[in-house]
């Protein structure tokens, strides 16, 4: 796990690979260097639309293109997609036009830019929109594969990527990555840790710490928050009987919220949620932010023990 990469780079690679499809169009809002759509722009300027610093316009230009048979990929910072939420709601999701929105720099892991750039609510708000697929991959390889799969989807999507590097997990394992299917990265029967994005590698480390104490944890990469892999959650409830969710996102409405909603309507199991505790971030290095937000490895391990203690 020594190789590192930022998920936004996986997005940029995928766009380049998708370029062989003449229907793929890339939309930018002056952040192509950051979201990594710039590689596509350099290779295919004729199919790249600069929308200036205008996110509301960008999403609906995408809708117009999608309604005419094109496959638009629009990216900006996660936080700035939110400015166009109503465009996403009324102009994209409602008519079910397959515009693919990528919000990079999601979460407090974004770091030193500070709280204005650290979206902690994007996954929650897009999850509430009918028709919209919501993704938050954990490494460059899965980001690339999921982005490529999105091009074949008939539904709009929101995908969060991260600014900073995390371990590469899926090199040579591309076949395991499917929209809507969580991936078991480690198996144990004491507790299941369900994570997304940058928190997947943190959760794997937590599982190692727990293993040293004789606790065997399953770790799941739930890269798709919607549609949620409810079958897998049922399986984890049966096999482990205690769950932890881990996300670099407000504990309200994100992955923890999605899993909790599923549990209350199905088989209940103890659930501990690790996430940003309903507060805004601040400037700091990525790893420092996970500490400040109390969502790093030791906090996940402690939550796993709390969940296990609640088993009846």
């Amino acid at each position, binding site marked *: 796990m020594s190789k590192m990469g930022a998920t936004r780079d996986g997005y940029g690679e995928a766009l380049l690979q998708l370029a062989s499809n003449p229907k793929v169009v890339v939309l930018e809002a002056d952040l192509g260097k950051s979201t990594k759509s710039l590689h596509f722009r350099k290779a295919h300027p004729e199919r790249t639309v600069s929308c200036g610093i205008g996110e509301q316009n960008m999403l609906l230009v995408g809708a117009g*293109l999608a309604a005419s048979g094109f496959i638009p990929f629009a990216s900006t910072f996660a936080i700035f997609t939110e400015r166009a939420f109503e465009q996403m709601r009324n102009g994209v999701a409602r*008519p079910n036009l397959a515009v693919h929105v990528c919000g990079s720099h999601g979460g407090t892991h974004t770091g030193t830019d500070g709280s204005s750039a650290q979206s902690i609510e994007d996954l929650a708000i897009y999850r509430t929109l009918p028709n919209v697929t919501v993704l938050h991959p954990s490494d460059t390889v899965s980001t690339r594969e999921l982005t490529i799969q999105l091009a074949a989807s008939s539904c709009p999507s929101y995908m969060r990527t991260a600014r900073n590097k995390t371990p590469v997990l899926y090199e040579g394992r591309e076949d395991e990555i499917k929209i809507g299917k969580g991936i078991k990265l480690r198996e144990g029967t004491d507790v299941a840790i369900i994570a997304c994005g940058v928190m997947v590698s943190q959760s794997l480390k937590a599982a190692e710490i727990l293993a040293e104490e004789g606790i065997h944890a399953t770790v799941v990469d739930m890269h798709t928050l919607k549609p949620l892999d409810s079958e897998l959650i049922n399986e984890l409830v049966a096999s482990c009987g205690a769950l932890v969710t881990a996300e670099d996102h407000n504990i309200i409405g994100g992955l923890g919220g999605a899993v909790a909603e599923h549990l209350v309507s199905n088989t209940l199991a103890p659930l501990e949620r690790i996430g940003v505790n309903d507060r805004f971030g601040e400037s700091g290095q990525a790893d420092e932010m996970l500490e400040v937000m109390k969502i790093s490895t030791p906090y996940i391990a402690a939550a796993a023990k709390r969940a296990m203690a609640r088993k009846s």
Partner: protein
Amino acid sequence: MEELEELARRCRVHIVNMVYKAQAGHPGGSLSEIDLLAALYKTQLRVRPNEPQWEDRDRFVLSKGHASPGMYAILAEMGFITVEDLDSYRVLGGICQGHVDMKWCPGVDFSAGSLGMGLSFGMGSAIAGRLENSARQVYVMLGDGEIQEGSVWEAAMAAAHHELGNLNVILDRNRIQNDDFCETQMRMFDIPAKWRSFGWNVKEINGHDMSEIVDGLNFLGTSNDGPSILIAHTVKGNGISYMADNPAFHGAAPNDEQYQQAMLELGEVSA
């Protein structure tokens, strides 16, 4: 011209009927736009009523989507939908949803209802046409109150930047918005100068004079170097005396007596 005027008169009858039957909806902006829509559909739009999804059709985007009775009326007259379909306006399960919706009604290219969105969508449609080397045109109808939405100006700037000569706006300048006259809600100062300064080709017409409308529509779609806007000076509620220039009929239905009077004024019944 007489044929177009008669078409617009029949559409006005449909509009009043729809709003009266539903006892809800937006007659004012439907009546101000209808002469423009009648001329646009009859003289300009390359569309196929029996094949509404024809890929190379011109696109029409009613961004002021509340003025849907006007659009449903012309769609019925053109044969996209039937006159009987108009009875489904605002009725559960009906194809004539309160605001025009591409998922419900044949001939509707854009799901509207939230102001300030249609021009951006039209811009995407225009880029699609250009990428496909198609000669098709995109027409977007905006309301004047609508251009108070900031997102309209994001789109206006971007469309000129991309030199979208196949993108055209018709601005229904009826001077009234939901609560009152535009002048009291948000003064917009020199609207033609604003669009010119954003890089658009601008022409102004009387939006109820058929020969001016036809000339104005001919001005659209001829530019190679950028988008064009036809600013049509109209009267909200035009054609019905008590609705004309009356903010109360932005979004209100006539009562029985008012309905009878409207039918009289439109020549549907004699005194």
